[in-house]
């Protein structure tokens, strides 16, 4: 398997200082990102955070207003052919031409990619159970996603770019997409960049995770590092507290009276010391899921309810 510690990581996608404004709204604010070769890079964020804008910059569909975008060392705007021939792209929108049949779609795409593998395409088509003679507009939404995935995978791209691939799809199609991601990464040197707000899937398959909120990258690290640096702590006070405790690194307290729980960022020893300083015992400590980290880091803090 790819042992990332022995080879110097080569960067496939490199964004530096990219800012993008659409009129008054800032979609991306000084974003810098590097996707190393041979990894699965997950981009998470709420709807409208800037994930699709970022991916469009990688594909050359948007020009960087400031900063630079390099994919395989090339500028996707200046050299669209060189960059796009190495990318397999699946978008969430209904993007495939409605009037094309499935076999025509494959026939058409084959001419553009020198690395197209006919047998692999046919094998995928049979696995996905796509009828060659059916038009794209006659396919269900899940089948359409499979057709797009087939067109993106058949030429064994060096980087697979997926923009919210699972949104609105049934679990079986989602399994197909995850399997495709894993099979791509299993091949030496191929990379996957995908954006999603289904954090369970991101946690399963990503090597690196970047969290983007309102156009800014708030977190970008290896998944294991992220899981190591966040802790879900439950503190118990001797006396009931009316306000949430102050512990540096805590992201939003939930609870009431004597027991308070929060996802905290930092080293465990420092947090334990801080908790002791605040006068509480740590009665529960576990690793939070990526979903909980995301909600704590990016979500709005709700005021504690006083129903209890």
């Amino acid at each position: 398997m790819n042992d990332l510690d022995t080879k110097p990581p080569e960067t496939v996608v490199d964004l530096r200082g990219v800012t993008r404004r659409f009129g008054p709204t800032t979609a991306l604010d000084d974003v810098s990102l590097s996707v190393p070769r041979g990894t699965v890079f997950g981009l998470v964020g709420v709807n409208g955070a800037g994930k699709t804008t970022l991916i469009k910059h990688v594909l050359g569909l948007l020009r960087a207003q400031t900063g630079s975008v390099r994919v395989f060392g090339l500028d996707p705007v200046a050299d669209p052919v060189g960059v796009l021939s190495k990318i397999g792209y699946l978008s969430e929108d209904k993007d495939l031409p409605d009037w094309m049949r499935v076999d025509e779609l494959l026939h058409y795409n084959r001419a553009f990619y020198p690395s197209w593998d006919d047998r692999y395409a046919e094998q995928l088509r049979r696995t996905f159970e796509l009828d060659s003679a059916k038009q794209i507009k006659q396919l269900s939404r899940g089948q359409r996603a499979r057709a797009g995935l087939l067109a993106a995978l058949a030429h064994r791209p060096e980087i697979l770019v997926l923009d919210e691939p699972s949104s609105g799809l049934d679990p079986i199609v989602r399994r197909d997409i995850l399997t495709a991601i894993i099979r791509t990464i299993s091949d030496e040197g191929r990379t996957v960049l995908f954006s999603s707000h289904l954090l369970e899937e991101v946690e399963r398959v990503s090597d690196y995770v970047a969290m983007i909120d309102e156009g800014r990258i708030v977190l970008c690290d290896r998944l294991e590092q992220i899981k190591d640096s966040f802790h879900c702590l439950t503190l118990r006070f001797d006396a009931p507290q009316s306000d949430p405790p102050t512990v540096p690194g805590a992201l939003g307290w939930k609870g009431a009276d004597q027991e308070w729980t929060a996802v905290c960022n930092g080293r465990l020893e420092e947090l334990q010391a801080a908790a002791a300083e605040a006068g509480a015992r740590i009665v529960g400590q576990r690793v939070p899921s990526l979903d909980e980290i995301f909600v704590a880091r990016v979500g709005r803090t709700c005021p504690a309810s006083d129903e209890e």
Partner: protein
Amino acid sequence: MQIHISANDGVPIYLQIVNQVKYLVASGRLAPGEELPPIRVLAEQLLVNPNTVARAYRELETAGLVTKRRTAGTYVSDAGSPLARRQRVKILTERVDALLAEARQLDVAVDEVVELIRQQDEKMQLGPKAGETP
């Protein structure tokens, strides 16, 4: 090899794999000398990143539970090795810790807990003989 991964409760996935393999070995469902699935196959079966499976296998190898034979795959180590037995005892130790913590919470003394264990063990041995439905 039946392993179930849940990405919801926060436990790192490689740790879930390690724990479940440990349990399978300890309970005898993975026999010594049996081959574990290749990393790629297990990754596709569980729908997780192959790097995660690789890390789990590395951890199991460090713990002595499996041995990696070059180009021939990963195999479960012999049961007779003291490391395997140490693993089994370690699993039980964790269960005992949990039991003791709960007993303390419920305000039940350690002696009562030990007595309870002995009673339940007797029942388990007598139960099928006496014709009771377990």
